[in-house]
């Protein structure tokens, strides 16, 4: 595991979040730029079905109201394909989109500096992007560690409030 290297190459807080357009369901795509105007919580994770990922996404799945209070859009991203994501989201009753960084494999994880080349999957990494598309907080954790949600909520709280 080369966490230090990954941290060093992840875009720093204050820099523009690399845009992407990825499949969000069979026949549908979602672009980061479409979400301008509200904060985005980007959750890179290694794989659908793996035990820690399940616990981590299950935890975020319970926090719809809390993320909603910030009008934040939660997005999961892994290298799994759309049909795998669809089956996984259905089995776990997930209420937020899972994006497929499938072809070219891991390209978006690479843009965010969180692709594990040797393993062919993303790191477990969190990015909080503000409503203007600027990365305000990021956190990369060892792959077996569930980072919880306290850091995300604290980052959302520290975003400047948009004028009403």
């Amino acid at each position, binding site marked *: 595991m080369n966490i230090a290297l990954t941290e060093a190459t992840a875009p720093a807080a204050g820099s523009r979040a690399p845009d992407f357009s990825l499949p969000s369901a069979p026949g549908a795509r979602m672009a980061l730029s479409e979400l301008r105007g509200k904060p985005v919580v980007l959750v890179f994770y290694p794989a659908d079905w793996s035990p820690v990922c399940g*616990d981590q996404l299950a*935890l975020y799945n319970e*926090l719809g109201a809390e993320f909603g209070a910030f009008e934040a859009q939660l997005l999961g991203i892994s290298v799994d394909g759309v049909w795998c994501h669809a089956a996984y989201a259905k089995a*776990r009753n997930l209420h937020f989109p899972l994006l497929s960084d499938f072809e070219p494999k891991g390209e978006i994880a690479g843009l965010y500096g969180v692709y594990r080349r040797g393993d062919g999957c993303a790191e477990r990494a969190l990015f909080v992007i503000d409503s203007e598309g600027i990365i305000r907080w990021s956190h990369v954790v060892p792959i077996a560690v569930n980072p*919880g*949600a*306290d850091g995300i909520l604290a980052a959302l709280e520290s975003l400047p409030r948009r004028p009403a």
Partner: protein
Amino acid sequence: MSLKIPIDQHDHALGAPDAPLTLLEFGDFECSYCIAAHPTVQGLIARMGERLRFVFRHMPLGEVHPHAELAAEAAEAAGAQGRFWEMHDALFERHAELGPELMTMLARRLQLDTTRFADDLSSRRFRDHVKRDFLGAIRSGVPGTPAFFVANELYVGSIDEQSLSAALQGLRLHA
């Protein structure tokens, strides 16, 4: 990670408030790891006797555990009638039957006022209490259940009597 919401009179605590050692658990009655940890906690309580105070807070993952929130609220509803711990233990011990019928049956067996119990569940009287526990867990950095806090710090280690007892007493066990 530290406990963000201090233990107070709203918490369910077993043992003396001035016991020298406190163990707090965030648990979910439908979580298999919490069910597995229940006998460990019982053993620890028996082993440590009056030195230990045990506090239980709710962290139900309702989207994956369809009966977990209701079970948490049933424990609270029993608690409102002075029988929290009996309901807590029974829900863990009879996890294979977890569901509304079990809760109703347990309320009868614990000789609760069953009308009041049913009203408390149908009106979701304790939903906010359970939610407060849950959000307190999130804010305290809890990634999943069961999560134990020893001396207000998130315990990271094996969930067995010996390891938990050593952590409570400030000892380090070397693997």
